[in-house]
Every structure is written in structure tokens, then in C-alpha cells.
């Protein structure tokens, strides 16, 4: 500390550091490790979130001036019949997609758990679609859905003499048709997670149940499912969030008429994309993103609540 150069320039910093206690040095290390990440999280996560909320109270077409409009965007949203249609669609994706994929995945995992022969191969078959991109698979399925003589599904139906189905051209069939590849691609992931959950249940529970001569249905409802609760809650939330944010499949399967026919497949994220990057109505789009954020927030909080009740 008697060094006259202390306190000036680089050497000063170094000796200042050297003068710190061991604990103090570690604190300095910790903050220097965190410095770049903190800048990143503030600039690329927190600031944009605040900015999106701010823009939702403004009217702005990207070129002109930003003007404050208070709650106008939200009022427009509530009065917009398209918004209600879109919100309904978004929840339809969730309400059909989540139960369907969870039940399918559970049945597969539950049965596959009892199979040894070629276990790994079968598991791989179910998992492979998870490794694909939604865009590529949306086009594959879009081809399958075409009318005869093009589409695979309708060709198959024709071979068996069953009448044709207008998958993507019907307002009632289009939404489930768009949803199917999303369920298909996510199934493998859920199977794997369910199997890990099943493995974690202690074998002694099953042995005890067998000794007591309990039926396999009772074992399922009284042992397996209750003990799988954390896994089920995780998968419900994970897949719900995924279905609420569906976009890639819809966008690619309805490029000629995005979200069509007659908005019957349009989810919230597609409406946001359209409003922001086709109509350049940034304020209105930002208000829609805030609504999406609030919906996802409620679902995440529900998960925390459910897991805590355990």
C-alpha cells in the first residue's frame, strides 16, 4: 500500500484487487463473470419487455410519429370480432392438443415400459418426429391433406371407397388438421418424459400391490397416476404453452390465405405477426402480445401453485 503508484491506472486497480480479502476477491470475480450476461438480459429481455408494454399504449405505424393513445389499442382489441375468433382458436388448439397428446403419450409410455424386445428401436420411432422442423413437416402434412389425386390421405380414403375429406379447405376440419402435425411432432418428447417418470416410481409399491392382489386398473389409478403427478403437471404446462404459441404450422399450411379459411385456423401469434409486419400497426400488435403474455403468465403461475400443493 506504500507504493506511490497506487490508485492510478491499471496497476492501481491490480493492487486494489490484491489488497482485497479472499472473500472480497471472489465477489469481484462473481460480478465480472456476470457482467456481460447482465447487460444481455437487461438489453435483450427486460428492456424489450417494457418497450412492448409501452408501445401497446401508443399508435405507431413504424414510419410516422408515436402518439400516446392510452387504452385505445386494448379497446379496439376487445371490440374486434377477429380477436375473439382468434382467441377462441388459440384455446381450441390448447384444449384439443394438450389432452390428446398427453393421453396418447401416456398410453405409449406406460405400455412401452413393459416391453423389452427392441425397446430402444420402438422408442426411437416415436421420438424421431421430435427432431424435425415444424416448417418442413407442415409442408409434408399439407401435401398429405390435398384432395385426390394429389394427397396421400384422400388417396388412401379413395382406395377404400370412403368419401373424401376437405382437410384444409373446410372451416370445421382445418384447425384439427393443422394441429395434427404439432401433436405428432411433440409426442416423442412426452413419451420420453413419461417413461422417465414411470422409472422413478419405486418398484416396491408395485410388488406390494401384487402381493395384495390388486387389479391392474387399480394399480394404474391408485399408484401410477398419483405418483406421476409432477411429470403430468410439467407436461401439461409445457405442451399448453407450446399450443398457445402455435405459429409455424399454421403459417406454412395456409400460406395462400394465412389463418384461413375464414380465420378458422388463425392463432393469436399469427394475428400478432400480421398486425405488426403486414399492417405495421405496431401499437395494436403490441397490445396483442401483452394479452398473450398475460395468458402464459397465468398458466405458469398455475403450474407453480399445483406443484406446491404436492
Amino acid at each position, binding site marked *: 500500500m506504500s507504493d506511490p503508484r497506487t490508485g492510478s491506472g491499471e496497476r492501481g486497480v491490480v493492487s486494489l484487487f490484491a489488497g482485497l480479502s479472499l472473500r472480497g476477491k471472489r465477489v469481484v470475480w462473481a460480478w465480472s463473470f456476470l457482467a456481460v450476461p447482465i447487460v444481455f438480459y437487461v438489453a435483450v429481455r427486460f428492456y424489450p419487455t417494457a418497450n412492448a408494454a409501452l408501445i401497446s399504449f401508443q399508435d405507431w405505424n413504424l414510419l410516422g410519429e408515436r402518439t400516446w393513445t392510452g387504452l385505445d389499442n386494448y379497446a379496439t382489441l376487445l371490440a374486434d370480432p377477429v380477436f375473439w375468433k382468434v382467441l377462441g382458436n388459440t384455446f381450441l388448439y390448447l384444449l384439443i392438443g394438450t389432452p390428446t397428446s398427453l393421453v396418447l403419450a401416456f398410453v405409449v409410455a406406460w405400455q412401452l415400459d*413393459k416391453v423389452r424386445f427392441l425397446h430402444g428401436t420402438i422408442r426411437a420411432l416415436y421420438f424421431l418426429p421430435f427432431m424435425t422442423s415444424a*416448417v418442413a413437416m407442415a409442408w*409434408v402434412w399439407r401435401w398429405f391433406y390435398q384432395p385426390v389425386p394429389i394427397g396421400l390421405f384422400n388417396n388412401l380414403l379413395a382406395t377404400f371407397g370412403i368419401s373424401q375429406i376437405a382437410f384444409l379447405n373446410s372451416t370445421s376440419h382445418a384447425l384439427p388438421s393443422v394441429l395434427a402435425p404439432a401433436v405428432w411432432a411433440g409426442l416423442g418428447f412426452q413419451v420420453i418424459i413419461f417413461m422417465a417418470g414411470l422409472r422413478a416410481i419405486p418398484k416396491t409399491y408395485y410388488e406390494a400391490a401384487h402381493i395384495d392382489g390388486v387389479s391392474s386398473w387399480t394399480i394404474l389409478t391408485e399408484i401410477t397416476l398419483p405418483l406421476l403427478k409432477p411429470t403430468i403437471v410439467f407436461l401439461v404446462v409445457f405442451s399448453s404453452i407450446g399450443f398457445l404459441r402455435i405459429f409455424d404450422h399454421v403459417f406454412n399450411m395456409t400460406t395462400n390465405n394465412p389463418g384461413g379459411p375464414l380465420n378458422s385456423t388463425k392463432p393469436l401469434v399469427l394475428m400478432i405477426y400480421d398486425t405488426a409486419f403486414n399492417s405495421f400497426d405496431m401499437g395494436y400488435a403490441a397490445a396483442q402480445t401483452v394479452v398473450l403474455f398475460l395468458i402464459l403468465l397465468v398458466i405458469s403461475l398455475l403450474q407453480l401453485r399445483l406443484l406446491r400443493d404436492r
Partner: protein
Amino acid sequence: MAATTDELTVRASSSALLKSGGTVRRLRRRGQTIRWLLLFAGGVAMVMPLAYMLSTSFKFPFEVYELNLIPEEPTLENYAYVLGDGRFMQWFWNSTLIATLTTISNVLFDSLVGYTLCKFDFRGRNVVFIAILSTLMIPTEMLVIPWYLMSQQFGWLDTTWGIMFPGLMTAFGVFLMKQFFESVPDDFLEAARIDGLNELQIWWSVAMPLVRPALAALAIFVFLGNWTAFIWPLIVTNSQDMYTLPVGLTTFSVEQSVEWELIMTGAAISVLPTLLVFLLFQRFIIRGVVMAGLKG
């Protein structure tokens, strides 16, 4: 004499037991066979879309609408056509570059942050951790508008950096790595400290090698996520040279509209790399997915 009768009774009853055990076993085996067949059929159905995509990419137009999986006259013409003008090569390269750089960044920064939050004791640690974790609740879709404005302001539109910057770090990765660093004993780190290593060296050469499986799991997730990412690259890119594979495939497919064999070829090109990686490292990837899924 009495003993032999007893023995006989025992033998008779045990053979009866065995016999009934045999039927149970046979029934169980039949159930097992049916279960196996159903599961296998389901698995085959799962890969059918992939099989038809691949098979069609090797078919001539005249065969495209047939249901046969093995092309009568296999051809590479579709691949020659799709790769011919070099656009797919460019998109493939863009996707590879972006997914690789983003993965490296995540592996480094997420683990550094996870390590710091796990192994250092300082005031504000919990605040930082909760702040980072809370970003998990913010959907990408809410951020794309501000990111777009930011990119416009800084001239990042239509650049590699512009596509990459939002994904350079993820809260999911931080959380995952923090969980795994918990299992690294503090004694190891203390020993290295006594040996005179500085904190950066301890993290890199002592702690990191111990969590290699977790790093691999993180890398798989980040790479796959960026390889298939669609909405942000769609928004931030304008020129075809900057497209990533998914955005390029969308544009290409819209152009072709009815040439399904060409669209299938494009789709095959964009999913084959990840499918091959999976087939090569299957066990490893599934373990990684379970790890990331359960701990993350």
C-alpha cells in the same frame, strides 16, 4: 411308505401348480406379443410421414401420387434441381453457422452464469437468479416487435448477428447448468484454489469437465431450437441470401406450389441433418432430453 405318498402328493400338486403357472405365463406372453405388435405398428405409423417425404424426394413426377414407398425408378434429379441454383446451400450454411455460434455462446455463458450463481456467495445472488429465471415467462412473440425496432435502429436487420442476438443466452440454460453444478463438490474447487488456479481457470478446467453430460444436453436443445427457429428469422431477414433453412423452405415451397416432389426434397434436406445426428447418438440424445426436461 407314508413318506413316499407325501412326496407323491407334493409332486402332483406342484406339477399342477406348474401347469396353471404355464397357462398364465402363456397368456401373459400372448398379451406381451399383442402389446409389442401394437406399439411397433404405432411406431411405424409415426415415421410414415418421414418415410413418404424421403421416398417422394427420389421419385419422378409421374410417380408422386402413387402410394408405393419404394420408387420404381429412383432418381436424384429432384436433389440436383433443388440444390442446383445454390440457394439451399446458402440457407444450409446460414442455419449451420447461426445454430453453431448460438450453441457455443449458450454453452459458455449459460454455464458461466449457472456456475457463478451456484458456487459463489455474494449479496444480490438471489436477485440476479430470480431476475434471469423470470425471463422464462416472457414469450418470444412479445419481444419480436422491440427486437425488430432495435435491429432497425442499429442496422442489424438482414444480418447474421441480427438473426442470432436474441438467442445468445437462455434462462433455461442457466437454470439447467446451475442444477448440475450443485453436484460438483466444493472441495474440488477449493483444492484447485489452493493449487493457485484463478477463478476463471477453476470454472473452465475443473468444474466444466465434471458437467459434460449436462453441457451436451444443453447443446442439443439449443442447436435444435435454432436450427428449426422460424418466426424471428422470418421477421428479421429480407434478402434471400440471409434466409435460414426454415424461412428459405417456406419461400421455395410457395414458389413451387404444386411440385410436391421438389417441396419434399427441400423438406428432406432441412430435416436430414438432425435426423442423422439423432440416429447416430440416440441413447445419448434421449438421456440429454430427459435431463433437460426434468431438471430444466
